[in-house]
């Protein structure tokens, strides 16, 4: 039943045509996406063709322990407005933040949609999933998030974890992680999962990932399940301030001359060197600026456990332990053991040398 239903859905190309989007404009958009993803230019035409042929997918968007920041970011993706159009064209069958329906009606709609597109739909998640105490820390419609995730994941063709919380637990999982928050991939093991981390992720990266998934399936991922196309380089590698790092020019504080001159923020805790994301190239707010450009170091929000990497204003090599006197204790123990070893050695010396000393004194 579901398959026949799917076939009735129009392709993205058909929707574009209906909305009067010209071929040229569509190609331009695809060129933009393929460029973002660092695909060779020759791929654009093939990509466009694949995307046009893709059928309008069913999307279930499940929010868990989240702040809606990711959704805010997603819905505010700027020009090309075509992206938003694409999202209008996809069948966003469930998102309880956006949809008008609420309560039982919304849940019913979700189950309906899932049933209809069982095994075919894309599951988008944002927010971490609390697991402690049988997941009691997060529930809606009488079911814990853990259960909801299991249920929704079962019929999904693939899962896209949007934001660092859904990807790796994010702020919810920060020490001491009272709710036992984890990311989707910590719970679901038998489905293709694409992580699009960030706090929030760059809108273009989210849409780009979705579009490329529609066109050609799961893209190439890194070991943290992030699309390599967007997360293949560190911020530091692509940072326009890199030359200051290389020449040893650093801002020492946020109000010194170095900061005003736009020097490297490494010493002020910038996580650029260990953070894989596209901020330095795609930037934010439609390419207007990005954190480092605005004078603040990268926080590393697309990395697992970014919240627990020491103070945000401590450098990437800073110590990550709280010494509550252990080292002082080790010093005291060292002195004590050293003294004891010396006393033992002196006793041994007396014992060993006894014979010869008697001889020489005679």
């Amino acid at each position: 039943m579901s398959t026949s239903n799917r076939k009735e859905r129009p392709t993205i190309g058909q929707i574009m045509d209906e909305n009067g989007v010209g071929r040229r404009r569509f190609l331009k958009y695809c060129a933009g996406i393929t460029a973002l993803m660092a695909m060779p230019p020759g791929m654009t035409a093939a990509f466009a063709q694949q995307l046009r042929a893709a059928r309008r997918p069913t999307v279930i968007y499940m929010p868990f322990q989240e702040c809606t920041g990711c959704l805010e970011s997603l819905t505010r993706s700027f020009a090309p407005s075509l992206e938003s159009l694409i999202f209008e064209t996809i069948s966003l069958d469930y998102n309880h933040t956006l949809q008008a329906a609420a309560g039982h009606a919304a849940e019913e709609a979700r189950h309906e949609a899932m049933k209809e597109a069982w095994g075919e739909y894309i599951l988008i998640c944002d927010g971490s999933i609390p697991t402690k105490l049988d997941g009691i820390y997060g529930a809606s419609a009488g079911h814990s998030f853990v259960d909801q995730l299991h249920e929704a994941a079962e019929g999904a063709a693939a899962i896209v974890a949007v934001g660092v919380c859904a990807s790796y637990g994010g702020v919810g999982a920060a020490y001491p992680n009272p709710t036992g928050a984890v990311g989707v991939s910590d719970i679901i093991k038998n489905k293709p999962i694409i992580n699009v981390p960030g706090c929030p992720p760059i809108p273009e990266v989210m849409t780009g990932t979705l579009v490329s998934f529609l066109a050609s399936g799961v893209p190439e991922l890194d070991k943290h399940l992030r699309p390599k196309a967007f997360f293949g380089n560190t911020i530091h590698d692509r940072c326009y301030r890199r030359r200051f790092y290389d020449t040893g020019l650093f801002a020492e504080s946020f109000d010194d001359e170095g900061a005003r001159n736009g020097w490297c923020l490494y010493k002020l805790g910038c996580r650029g060197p260990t953070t894989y994301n596209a901020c330095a190239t795609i930037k934010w707010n439609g390419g207007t600026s990005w954190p480092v450009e605005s004078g603040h170091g990268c926080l590393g929000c697309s990395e697992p456990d970014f919240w627990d990497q020491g103070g945000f204003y401590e450098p990437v090599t800073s110590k990550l332990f709280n010494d509550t006197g252990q080292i002082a204790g080790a010093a005291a123990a060292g002195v004590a053991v050293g003294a004891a070893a010396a006393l033992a050695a002196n006793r041994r010396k007396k014992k060993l040398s006894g014979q010869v000393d008697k001889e020489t004194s005679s």
Partner: protein
Amino acid sequence: MTLLEFSRGTMLHIALIVFVFGVLWRLVTTFMLGWRKRKSEWRTSAGQSAVKGAIAVGNRSWPHPEFLNRTAFGEAVGYGYHIGLFAIVLLGAPHVVFWKNLFGINASWWPTIPSGIISVVSVVTIFLLLIATIRRYMPPPLRRISNFDDWFTLVILFTLMITGVMAVFGIGGRYELILAAHIIAFNVLLIWFPFSKLMHAFYILPARFFIGYTHAKKGAST
């Protein structure tokens, strides 16, 4: 926990504990093994001898010219990589930041050297260490007296230097892994330190002082 977190968290903490514990253990034992009371008639007073001992601590760094025709190359290589290591460790920006953070000090006077220069110094230092290694293997006296201590210390130093350079140039893998390897190598160095010849960093002071002091008392050459 990522490898990087482990390296600069738990492992660094343990390494520092072992380092402090081991270094003090070894030094305290050494200096508590008993002192000889010497009874000869001395040429130089204890006070003056102590001054000469203190001078010897610095002076021994400069080889006597009488020996240079045989030792100049070894001295140059030794000096070279020591200066290189100190420059990198004490003046490289990422290292300075690390020390400041580790000791919890805000030493704004602490200078740094541009990383371009540090990179050149690093490559030169690796090269010099390589020569030092070859020298240890090549000339018979060195090879004859070398033991596991020497070789293992060199292995750690090479790992440390090479991962450092790889991290800076972004070669050989993901930065955070290389950085973690670099910090782990440093931790291994810290743990190995008290039990190895690396302790010469501490012993050099009393050893030089003693020879300066005892020789000054006899008026002998220092």
